[in-house]
């Protein structure tokens, strides 16, 4: 058994790992948000009680989303290797990990968004309908705007879930903090590295949560309630 890694090296490992993790999580969250919100909106609109009921579309989207969410991430990670190579010309490294992370998160975000939009009261939506607003305007000015705080919370939940999944990216050489924890902390029995990573991940999770809470509060106009 070898001696513990010196602190200076630990810092080096952790800072590189943090950078890689934030890169993977950040980009995949962004992609998942950009694709997941329209997906959630479509799920909501095409539902039988929605503004544009469409049984076929709703069923297809629902099935795709359910299949996507049923897939264990580790399986997705390896199953998508060829797709990843096609998209980003490599199947290893952080950039390669973004593909399965984003693909896994899109259906997740879609469902979260659908649930959030469902919370906008029917009478509020119908009031907008009676003003002669187009569906696009209702989506933008009513559905998304009214649920903006909840949407931001949903993205926060997604980000933290992706932070968890990104730890598995080490499997395809994705790097990141998870990789540091497993390859160095665990496999080389280096408790110092292992526990430093654990603490750092906990801190990251807390900070991300705080940032999203703050953002949600900033867009929520209802908080100005007591004047």
């Amino acid at each position: 058994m070898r001696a513990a890694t010196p602190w200076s090296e630990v810092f080096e490992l952790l800072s590189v790992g943090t950078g890689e993790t934030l890169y993977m999580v950040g980009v995949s969250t962004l992609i998942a948000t950009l694709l997941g919100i329209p997906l959630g909106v479509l799920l909501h609109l095409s539902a039988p009680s929605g503004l544009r009921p469409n049984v076929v579309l709703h069923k297809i989207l629902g099935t795709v989303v359910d299949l996507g969410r049923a897939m264990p991430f580790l399986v997705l990670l390896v199953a998508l290797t060829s797709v990843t190579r096609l998209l980003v010309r490599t199947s290893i490294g952080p950039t390669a990990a973004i593909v399965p992370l984003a693909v896994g998160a899109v259906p997740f975000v879609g469902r979260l968004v659908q649930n959030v939009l469902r919370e906008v009261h029917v009478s509020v939506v119908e009031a907008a309908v009676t003003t002669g607003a187009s569906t696009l305007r209702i989506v933008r000015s009513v559905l998304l705007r009214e649920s903006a705080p909840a949407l931001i919370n949903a993205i926060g939940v997604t980000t933290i879930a992706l932070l968890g999944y990104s730890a598995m990216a080490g499997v395809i050489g994705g790097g990141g903090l998870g990789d540091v924890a497993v390859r160095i902390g665990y496999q080389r029995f280096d408790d110092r590295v292992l526990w430093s990573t654990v603490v750092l991940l906990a801190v990251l999770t807390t900070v991300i949560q705080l940032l999203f809470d703050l953002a949600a509060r900033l867009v929520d106009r209802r908080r100005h309630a007591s004047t």
Partner: protein
Amino acid sequence: MITVENLTKTFPSQGGPVTALAGVTLDVRAGTVCGVVGPSGAGKSTLARCVALLERPDSGSIRVDGTDLVGLDGSRLRAARRQIGVVPQGDSLLRQRTAAGNVALPLESAGMPAPQRRSRVAELLDLVGLTDKAGNYPDQLSGGQRQRVAVARALAANPSVLLADEPTSALDPETTGSVLTVLDRARAELGVTVLVVTHDMAVVRRICDDVAVLEHGRVVEHGRVLDLVSDANSRTAATLLPEVDQSAGVAGNHDRVADVVLVGFAAVGALLPEAASRFDVQLALLGGGLTRLGETPVARFRVGLTGERADSALEWISDTGAVVVRTPKGPQGVAA
């Protein structure tokens, strides 16, 4: 004006199809307020949703200023919706927008440029008396204020018809007054034709020129409120007029006992005393009372008449335009 003709709507359900509207025909004169009343389950809400163009009737037509709005699609449907301002049932304001922002929504849909929008919003908030609440969010407004914002929003795009679906159902009687005043002002100042769907007779009493009673998906009574109260068989009259204790005076020693319905200042103020002096009868008020329908005083009194010419007095009252209903039993032992 708005004309609803032969509107039918059936909903599927587990126990077979349920008929919500079984041929509703309704005519609301331009610039008047018409109340649609009826027990729950009578089809009020379905009628309101059809007129709001949220629900498509199975058959029939809804004409606003002559144009049938049933069966439109796409942009023509959206344009038609702008002709009918709707105050929906329940809380319908965007909670993330100020009162002014909510009123602006229909103007945005209509593509009005921002500067004009601002002045129009200011006008509307002034109409509903909420200029000082322009920057408040719905959570900072009372139930009545929220409803007035909803009225302002409904009026924003200058519709010719305003439909209010149970606008006072969640409000206490005092706040109800402020909302009704605003609806009445919309009619008076903007000349909109107002259709109010309500279970609350106070709404009819306060602001309605006309009333339609809906039952089992059909209009069973429709007419001017002031005409209906003079109709002895009208159920609107029965609920709107002051109640009369049915036993009042029956056992007394009056020569005649009758219920008299008086409409208007002159009738309420002077008719009974004049009858008494003209026919030299003693006239006693046994029950009933005075109320107001809109601006018009209306009374229903039970009167007891004593004197030889009691019958003539009642006939004269009736000829003068008041409604006289002699109590069915009548006093015993009358020497006629």
